[in-house]
């Protein structure tokens, strides 16, 4: 019985069962009709359902039996060619593994919905306005200028609370802030840095996340209420031993007594994939937890500080537009109260965005980097497919005689096809399974590269999800079809006449046309992959060699956060002077200076610049940084003119600032900047006087064109921002001649000797900070380089394998030619020519593909054009080298052919 009818019958197994039942009923009826008592007839028939079952089983068992036979046969075939089998499985493992790895990352970072019920109903609320809304002091979170309008995501606490109460379009409107670092102490022991997220009282109920213990109540979200917290499952297991009695326990957050009321569920990380909050607290607790800046500070929420993002669960059946239309008037009413604006155009307007995946985990650049990697591994998988197809095809040709004989002996073509399909299926299953394992390991490795150092902002949940499993199964199946189809058809199509007639030579040459084409396609794909890898590597190299304007080696930053230990602004200067002196005393330390923003750390401050007598343009911006004395010596920034900071500058009313040459060129093009005055707002355009000019530096990133930088003296004041250093951590830049590990250890000890309650909160070398901001570039460079090398290796194996096979098939021909006087070098040249023709065809195919790929890469390239001669030349050279290397063994094999033996085999 053929495969198809079996398949058909399996599909209609119910009808088959009915047929058997009818047949048995007929048997019974006939027995009765022939005069037997019905009861006796039934007894004679026996257990009907058992007979039915056994009869049905006949078909399935027979099929399984013959499949098992095919599996055993396939297994024997594989064992007969262990090298080939190993090469095939290894290629598949690499191809599928790489795809699984990148897909797991893509899935975890970009595709996976939030781990909450019915995530597709979630919407994120943002707003746009005609320029920065007047009256606001601060806007947290992402702010962009899109289509000429200012766009932001955060609102004030008052706006959020009233909007959440008054709106009706969402089942719940939830508010939350971006996680902030906080000091958490479990008992009298020293505090530990945790990630704290302020959330609205309805956060967990609104997202339908079940809390162990108590979710927040509305009364918890009031200024002055007893501070309460919910800890993440990770923190609960890791720090509280998963002890249920932790609920109700008293802890201290930023030195404020707080009670734990609940534990979040295991997979819940908040609304920002990749960022895991350790502790959640009600929005109003922000007032209580804020480090005391001055004892007499008024305690209350500042409505001009917009820091709360909103996400809502849309009511079923409502469109986004309907929700926006319902909420917008309420929102605008509330917003205009705060901004005091009456101009229609200057009142923020709501935007409703999809929120199923929460906040975007990656920047657009990182997202495109992941997609590029996905494209690269897809190319790699295609190379694997052609490689495996070629290897199997050559074997199928070799097995054609066997197939032809089996056909002649009466085996069905479909049966032969099934034999091949089962073998390919076996290969795909083994390759897929080992690919999955490799992918799992690779994904974690790449993830570790992503998540450099203590920076856990890209910490994704990489548990093998059903989606990843489906993806792997899907790619293994697709791969099997791609690599298996041609060999299977070739195997089943064997024509006895042709094959037996052809014996072991001749005709075969033309049969290799398909394999030759595949090898060329493979070379083309490989070229595209290595051109991409070469471009990314060149780009990484270029950006790593950028002159940053200061001495990046032997420079480290030691950070402390005295605010968290309860220091007030009044006590800060004395502490910091002592800390700096202790650090400077460490043997090997050359120079120490405090500063607010660590250079090239990815973050920083910028402000608009106003120069008296100059028309202010929207682009008049400068980055600024507060630095202590000796900062320029410590960082290695040359002083070009004027003077550096002196202790006398360290006071709130100081007017002295130092600017870089770019600032001088930009704002004082025709005169000496020394003595020049400017301000950061229109109200006070003569606030600062330039006392010195230093060399240009890159400020917080290397990709964008550097902006002008203003240096202000480092002092401590009660208000954050331009007025003075904020209540964030204090960073000491340390230039030292000793290695980083030693320095970190010595610095920790030095700081402990100043005040044990203020531990070193961070230690970073400048090179590590630079590595971190170049994370995407490095990731792309390394991984695409690794994949490019893999692609080259695979192509080498593919080419070499093909040529070996071609030489083996042509042993007789070569023998005859050598007998007729061809020299070894001629034979070698022929093999080489054959390889180069294939590579040449591949290059012709690959160049346009490479160009398309390079164009897609454009956004990732730093000062490198998509058509980069060096990258293309490098890729071509690599390919040629691989081709020649792949030809070596087959060529030697061909040259070693002994004419006598070759001819005797005839």
């Amino acid at each position: 019985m053929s495969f198809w009818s079996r398949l058909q019958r399996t599909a209609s197994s119910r009808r088959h069962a009915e047929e058997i039942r009818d047949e048995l009923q007929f048997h019974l009826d006939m027995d009765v009709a022939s005069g037997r008592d019905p009861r006796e007839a039934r007894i004679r028939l026996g257990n009907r359902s058992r007979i039915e079952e056994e009869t049905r089983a006949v078909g399935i068992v027979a099929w399984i039996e013959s499949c098992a036979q095919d599996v055993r046969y396939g297994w024997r075939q594989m064992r007969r060619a262990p090298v080939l089998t190993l090469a095939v499985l290894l290629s598949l493992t690499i191809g599928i593994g790489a795809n699984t790895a990148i897909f797991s990352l893509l899935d975890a970072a970009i595709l996976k919905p939030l781990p909450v019920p019915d995530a597709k109903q979630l919407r994120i609320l943002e707003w746009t306005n005609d320029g920065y809304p007047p009256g606001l002091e601060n806007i947290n979170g992402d702010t962009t200028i899109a289509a000429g309008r200012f766009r932001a995501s955060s609102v004030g606490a008052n706006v959020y609370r009233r909007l959440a109460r008054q709106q009706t379009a969402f089942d719940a409107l939830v508010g939350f802030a971006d996680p902030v670092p906080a000091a958490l102490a479990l008992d009298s022991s020293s505090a530990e840095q945790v990630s704290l997220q302020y959330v609205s009282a309805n956060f967990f109920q609104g997202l339908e996340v079940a809390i162990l213990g108590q979710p927040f109540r509305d009364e918890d979200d009031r200024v002055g209420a007893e501070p309460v917290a919910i800890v993440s499952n990770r923190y609960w297991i890791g720090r509280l031993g998963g002890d249920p009695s932790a609920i109700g326990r008293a802890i201290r957050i930023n030195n404020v007594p707080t009670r734990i009321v609940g534990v979040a569920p295991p997979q819940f990380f908040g609304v920002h994939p990749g960022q895991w909050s350790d502790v959640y607290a009600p929005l109003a607790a922000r007032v209580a937890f804020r480090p005391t800046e001055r004892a007499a500070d008024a305690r209350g929420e500042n409505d001009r500080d917009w820091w709360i993002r909103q996400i809502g669960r849309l009511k079923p059946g409502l469109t986004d537009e309907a929700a926006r239309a319902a909420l917008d008037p309420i929102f605008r009413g509330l917003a205009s109260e705060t901004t005091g604006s009456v101009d229609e155009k200057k009142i923020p307007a709501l935007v409703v965005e999809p929120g199923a995946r929460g906040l975007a985990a990656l920047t657009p650049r990182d997202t495109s980097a992941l997609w590029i990697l996905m494209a690269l591994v897809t190319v790699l998988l295609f190379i694997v497919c052609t490689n495996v197809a070629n290897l199997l095809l050559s074997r199928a040709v070799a097995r054609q005689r066997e197939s032809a004989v089996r056909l002649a002996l009466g085996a069905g073509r479909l049966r032969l096809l099934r034999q091949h399909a089962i073998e390919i299926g076996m290969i795909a299953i083994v390759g897929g399974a080992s690919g999955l394992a490799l992918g799992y390991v690779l994904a974690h490795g790449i993830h570790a590269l992503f998540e450099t150092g203590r920076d856990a902002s890209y910490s994704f949940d990489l548990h093998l999800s059903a989606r990843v499993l489906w993806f792997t199964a899907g790619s293994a199946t697709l791969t099997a079809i791609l690599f298996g189809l041609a060999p299977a058809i070739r195997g089943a199509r064997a024509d006895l006449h042709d094959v037996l007639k052809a014996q072991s030579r001749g005709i075969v040459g033309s049969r290799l046309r398909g394999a030759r084409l595949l090898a060329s396609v493979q070379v083309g794909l490989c070229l595209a992959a290595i051109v991409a890898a070469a471009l990314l590597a060149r780009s990484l190299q270029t950006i790593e060699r950028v002159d940053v304007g200061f001495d990046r080696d032997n420079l480290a930053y030691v950070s402390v956060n005295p605010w968290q230990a309860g220091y007030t602004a009044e006590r800060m200067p004395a502490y910091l002077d002592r800390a700096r002196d202790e650090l400077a005393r460490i043997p090997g330390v050359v120079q120490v200076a405090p500063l607010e923003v660590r250079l090239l750390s990815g973050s920083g401050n910028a402000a608009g610049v106003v120069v008296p007598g100059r028309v202010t343009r929207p682009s008049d911006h400068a980055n600024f940084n507060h630095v202590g004395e000796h900062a320029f010596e410590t960082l290695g920034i040359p002083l070009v003119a004027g003077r550096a900071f002196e202790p006398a500058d360290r006071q709130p009313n100081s007017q002295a600032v130092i600017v870089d040459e770019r600032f001088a060129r930009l704002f004082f093009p025709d005169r000496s900047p020394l003595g020049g005055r400017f301000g950061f707002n229109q109200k006070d355009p003569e606030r600062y006087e330039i006392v010195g000019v230093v060399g240009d530096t890159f400020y917080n990133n290397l990709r964008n064109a550097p902006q002008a930088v203003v240096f202000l003296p480092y002092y401590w004041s009660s208000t954050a921002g331009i007025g003075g250093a904020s209540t964030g951590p204090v960073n000491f830049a340390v230039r030292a001649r000793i290695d980083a590990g030693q320095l970190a250890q010595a610095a920790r000890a030095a700081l402990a000797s100043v005040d044990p309650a203020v531990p070193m909160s961070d230690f970073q070398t400048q090179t590590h900070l630079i590595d971190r901001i170049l994370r995407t570039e490095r990731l792309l460079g390394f991984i695409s380089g690794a994949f490019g090398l893999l692609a080259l290796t695979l192509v080498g194996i593919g080419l070499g394998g093909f040529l070996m096979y071609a030489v083996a098939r042509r042993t007789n021909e070569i023998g005859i030619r050598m007998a007729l006087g061809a020299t070894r070098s001629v034979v070698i040249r022929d093999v080489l020519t054959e390889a180069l023709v294939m590579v040449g065809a591949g290059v012709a195919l690959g160049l346009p593909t490479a160009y398309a790929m390079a164009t897609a890469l454009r956004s990732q390239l730093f000062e490198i054009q998509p058509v980069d001669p060096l990258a293309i030349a490098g890729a071509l050279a690599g390919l040629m080298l691989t081709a020649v290397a792949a030809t070596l063994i087959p060529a030697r094999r061909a040259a070693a052919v002994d004419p006598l033996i070759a001819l005797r085999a005839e």
Partner: protein
Amino acid sequence: MSILDIYMAKPDNLQGALDVLVMKTLCRGAQHGFAIAAEIQQSSDDVLKVEAGSLYPALHRMTEAGLLKAVWRTSTAGRKARYYELTSKGRRRLTESEKRWHEVAAAVARVLRTA
């Protein structure tokens, strides 16, 4: 008889005997299961009683193996019944098996005579 036994069956044990009897019965023309059982019983003078529990799995297995062909046809009594007929492959198999059986039977007989 377990499922496995059906499948491990070789033509030279009892299972094979039933196959030969069925094929022999069918070489005289297509028949449904009940008629096959009745005919075997009859022609063996009631010595061989074919159980439905052995017969139907055997019929289906032989159909799978391509020895028999099954079709639904209206029986003499005017009801739809599943008729089995011998395929050419079945016919060849019958010839082989018959020959084998005669040899085995003769051999057994010789052993019994001399012992």
